[in-house]
């Protein structure tokens, strides 16, 4: 065994690894400089994985306000809220964006936010305003959870796509719908809440019994429902999905166009307008935030026209501020629902866990 050359090689490896680590740590420290925001020039926004924006828009804010923005995406919507609650005594940032109306009560009850009435809050459409006495959260965007249908499938089968919750339990739509687990998926929960809003405390369980008898399929997450089971999406087509109805978003059809190459003239999917539940996302100043001034400026920016108009094509949501424009592609392929179901956050807070529990034993067991 060539011991000497072997030893030399090992030494080289060790040295190289050491150097590599040194370089790595240098990179690491440079891009996390001033990370804790104690220098009041950095403001940290905590959000979920779907948070997205155009770089230049945020740069404009940085230039104007003098703050440097650090974005921390912290898991899916539910996880991000839960993590923020866990760390509320020593938060990871100053502003949290992305708690929606289905989870709002959890955040408020746990004291996640402190009061701040954003500058420009009077421009927010009245229907989205909540917590008017304490101003702990500011609405930022809204979206609709709706049943999407596969246009090609319905025309090939010479069947009119369903338009309402009532349609979904009709025999001609038997075995066509796939939805998500309400206890683990945000669109799944939204769909359940939509039926609860539509049929009330006494009616929704009866509705789901009929839906189950009509062959609804439940999968765990949106990814699987939309990309594997649904026949109308790009992913679902490849996976030979065979359910032409899926619980997704009103903005999924424009995404099918915008992320296609070449772009089709019309969206391959449509939205059943009478099956929608409105989801609203809020932002708030975190309790114990280190940079409250920066956080306030950031919330003001989030409801500013520039950011509001930047959201649709990045996050596939609608602005909440009066007069903010929505891009043409968006209105053309995926208009917001005309008359979505809504539920007051207090009603969701009182019933959510109970409903999900009953739903689970009713539908999954």
């Amino acid at each position: 065994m060539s011991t000497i050359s072997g030893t030399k090689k090992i030494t080289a490896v060790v040295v190289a690894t050491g150097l590599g680590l040194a370089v790595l740590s240098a990179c690491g420290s440079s891009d996390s400089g001033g990370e804790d925001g104690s220098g009041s020039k950095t403001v940290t926004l905590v959000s979920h994985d779907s948070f997205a924006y155009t770089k230049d828009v945020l740069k404009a804010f940085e230039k104007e306000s003098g703050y440097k923005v650090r974005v921390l995406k912290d898991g899916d919507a539910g996880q991000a809220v839960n993590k923020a609650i866990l760390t509320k005594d020593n938060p990871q940032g100053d502003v949290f964006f992305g708690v929606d109306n289905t989870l709002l009560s959890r955040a408020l009850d746990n004291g996640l936010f402190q009061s701040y009435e954003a500058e420009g809050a009077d421009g927010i459409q009245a229907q989205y305003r909540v917590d008017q006495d304490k101003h702990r959260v500011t609405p930022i965007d809204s979206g609709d959870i709706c049943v999407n249908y596969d246009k090609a499938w319905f025309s090939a089968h010479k069947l009119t796509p369903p338009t309402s919750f009532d349609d979904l339990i009709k025999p001609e739509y038997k075995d066509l719908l796939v939805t998500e687990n309400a206890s683990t998926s945000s669109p799944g929960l939204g769909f359940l809440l939509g039926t609860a809003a539509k049929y009330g405390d006494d009616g929704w369980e009866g509705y789901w019994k009929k839906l189950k008898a009509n062959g609804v399929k439940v999968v765990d997450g949106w990814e699987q429902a939309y990309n594997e089971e649904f026949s109308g999406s790009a992913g679902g087509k490849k996976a030979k999905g065979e359910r032409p109805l899926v619980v997704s978003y009103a903005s999924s059809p424009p995404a099918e166009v915008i992320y296609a190459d070449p772009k089709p003239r019309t969206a391959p999917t449509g939205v059943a307008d009478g099956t929608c539940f409105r989801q609203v996302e809020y932002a708030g100043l975190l309790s114990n935030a280190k940079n409250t001034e920066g956080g306030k400026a950031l919330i003001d920016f989030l409801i500013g026209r520039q950011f509001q108009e930047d959201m649709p094509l990045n996050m596939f949501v609608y602005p909440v501020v009066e007069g903010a424009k929505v891009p043409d592609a968006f209105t053309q392929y995926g208009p917001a629902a005309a008359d979505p179901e809504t539920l007051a956050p207090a009603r969701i807070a009182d019933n959510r866990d109970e409903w999900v529990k009953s739903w689970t034993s009713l539908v999954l067991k």
Partner: protein
Amino acid sequence: MDLARTEVAPPARPRSPHRGSVARLGLMAVPVAFFGVFFAYPVVAITVRGLKVDGVWRFGRIGDVLAQPDIRHVLWFTTWQALASTALTLLIALPGAYVFARFEFRGKQILRAVVTVPFVLPTVVVGTAFLALLGRGGLLDELWGVRLDTTVWAILLAHVFFNYAVVVRTVGGLWAQLDPRQEEAARMLGASRFTAWRTVTLPALGPAVAAAALMVFLFTFTSFGVVQILGGPTFSTLEVEIYRQTSEIFDLSTAAVLTLVQFAAVGAILAVHARTVRRRETALRLVDAGATARRPRGAGQWALLAGVLGSIAVLLVLPLAVLVERSLDAPGFGYYKALTRNEGSLFLVPPIEAVGNSLRYAFAATAIALLIGGLAAAALTRRDAGRLGRLVRGFDALLMLPLGVSAVTVGFGFLIALDEPPLDLRSTWILVPLAQALVGVPFVVRTMLPVLRAVDGRLREAAAVLGASPWRVWREVDLPMVRRALLIAAGFAFAVSLGEFGATVFIARPDNPTLPVAVARLLGRAGELNYGQAMALSTILMLVCAVSLLVLERLRTGLRSDRTGEF
């Protein structure tokens, strides 16, 4: 990979008295501190948070939670699916182990790397591929109209996919070194072929089979991604339930109770495994693996080889091929080209940069795992009797615990435990390699330990007698002999870090996604390009894993003769 690698006792050697004990306890201090700070402390913190409400312990919750029929159902399902997966894996992989051990055929080295690729692939990728194989329009559907995508069979087959290599490498590795002449001698003395196998080979293999079975049981008992993706909402393992309770339902006390239950179960499995490993350390007559393999002879052997190759093609290669096929489903490598652009603002950087991030993190994680695992292995090298021996063996088993603890528990634990100076690491990049190193260390220890133990102690003693310092002894005696094992350990730690998903997804920063994290994010969005890019990135990840494993294969071949040359 060779978590249950055969350990072969070197010839008995004189033990030096207690002089080394103190030094070895000192060596153990670093790994112990590492696991204490980056594993035990966060896990305890999150568990305590769940069980202690307003300063009062709620141990009553344990009874409450375990009394729930839903939870009992989860416990029952977790156990029986793990048993069934283990049995099925053994059934399918043992012939494979035999073929790899005893037959010589073209492409064997590449094939051995190929069967190992699944083990290091992230489950999010595998789940998608499996749906395409077993679901509608999949191969089974096209051939026989059979669909398994909502049945427990999908889970079981995916478990075979992941763990095939565990059996092939653990059992096959030893099988290749068993001297075939022993069995031949038995036959010469009049034993039937089966009797010879049962009385000679089986007893020698038994402990390796048991160890492999226990590792497969451990991996399937704690299965997460496979069950979540393929099981749908109806099937749930303990690990999936912990994830749901923590991350979705936010019922920390239920999650804490389930964490304790899983901890107890995993502890028990590891204890049994440790016993098996010790039982295996009986001296066996081993020969160079290269000398026992030969070309198959006769129709029966060719049929066996064909059967094994066929099962590998269907169960292991096909799911991987589906990924590649889907990634190429755009003209002119369209999805791959899209990876270099920064169109969607999902990542802030072109997705292809995830490759660089993954490599950087994996290098750092490998360095950490080698340091920690190397020190641990060095400390564990000598087997002692009595209390010290038990302590050392207990430590050995403890190092494996991170493999059996839910990533969500560790991730949430990091969040609440590592938030104060000097350990305010929540927003630093090093957190990702640290989490990855936690799962890398057991691999390093498992790879290094048998080789270190095989170094003849008399060499060390001779060096010491001639005046070498302990450091010099290690550098001049141990290091040259284990350098290949060191590289192999590094390779495995690297591949495992590359594919690590559960903990990374919790802590990776958005502007620095790793490959598996980027795949998951792309899959989470509507639209053809996103889906295609996810498949393209998965393919890249698979290739990187395959290449590092292939390099390992080359090293391994060399190692085998190094090691066995001593006996």
